[in-house]
């Protein structure tokens, strides 16, 4: 279903996610690393509570100056040491 969304749906809508990696790529990676339950919580937290608030400014901006970097390995609950590296 995720692949279907990425290949057939997202292509037409264009790039809307303000984070890098995109939410679908983020979810795919979180699914591989942490399983469906935690990946779903992480995705909902990102999409609903973090993506459009003031907290967006806390995430470093990518070199092109457009997207804020929020990789799975820097999610604090899931990987504390990754945050500091």
């Amino acid at each position, binding site marked *: 279903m995720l692949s279907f969304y990425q290949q057939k749906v997202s292509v037409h809508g264009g790039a809307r996610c303000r984070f890098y990696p995109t939410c679908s790529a983020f979810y795919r990676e979180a699914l591989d690393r942490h399983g469906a339950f935690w990946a779903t919580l992480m995705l909902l937290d990102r999409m609903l509570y973090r993506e459009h*608030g003031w907290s967006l400014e806390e995430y470093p901006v990518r070199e092109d100056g457009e997207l804020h970097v929020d990789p799975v390995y820097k999610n604090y609950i899931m990987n504390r040491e990754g945050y500091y590296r």
Partner: protein
Amino acid sequence: MILKRLLVSLLLQSFLLSTNLSLAQSERGFAISLYRAGEYESSIVELQRWIYFNQDAPFAPYARYLLALSQGRMGKYAKAASTLHGLIDSISGQERDGYYGELICESHLQLLNLHFRERRFRDFEIENDRFAAACSDPDPRLSAGAQSMAVAIHVYDRNWDEALKALGTANLLDRETSETLERGINEMNQHSPKSPVLGGMLAIIPGLGHLYAGRGVDGLRSFLINAAGIGLTVFCFVMGMPVFGVLFGVIETALYLSNIYGGVNAVMQQNARFIVERRDELLKILTVPPLDVITLREELYGP
């Protein structure tokens, strides 16, 4: 490109031959000039070639040192460390006869530098002990660099007590830097982070966990989204639509749990962010020695 380099090399060699300079000296000078010009890839090739043909020359250890620096400058830290280890092993013992003493000390310092850049803390500590054992009276520039890195490595790893201890023994750092660092490290030691458990408990009321973490807008969004979800669920059950009620209930459960997750994560992230920002400010004060020639300029580049 290779033909051009070969032609330049042949022209230079023939010119220098005609002016009675030795071929080895001219090739060595060419390799050094490539390093100084920042052409590290080319300098690696030339230095390796020179070392191969002049292994017993007195300048060979210096050439190997430059080779290691070139490799380090290209980001090949493992190769650079290996070259430096080989160099130190080959000339250890000769410093007692008055040769290569400074080269050994500077090589040890650059090994420390490489371990620091790669954040290999255990290797750094082992190498620091070797540096102290091999160089009882090093150049002050080398000592200052080693002391600075010893403090920086503990600051980077957030070992504030160890950083204070290392700062106490760093007598070559200037007073202003030492005082600023001591203040900064003490501030970190005394900082009491916000409680993620409290953040999680507050998040039982949607949005309060985010508010406690200092993210007001996120908290408000969380409250509105969950209020809408709970409202819809209750509405469906009251209006006699249990199927929709269950559906919205399941969705709202996921949203509610993610609100609690988000509240705890926000508190933990804010705590970590404070530490990372202060740590990076402290690291900017500490000057790490360059991956470059420090005390051997005259031996390598001439007067």
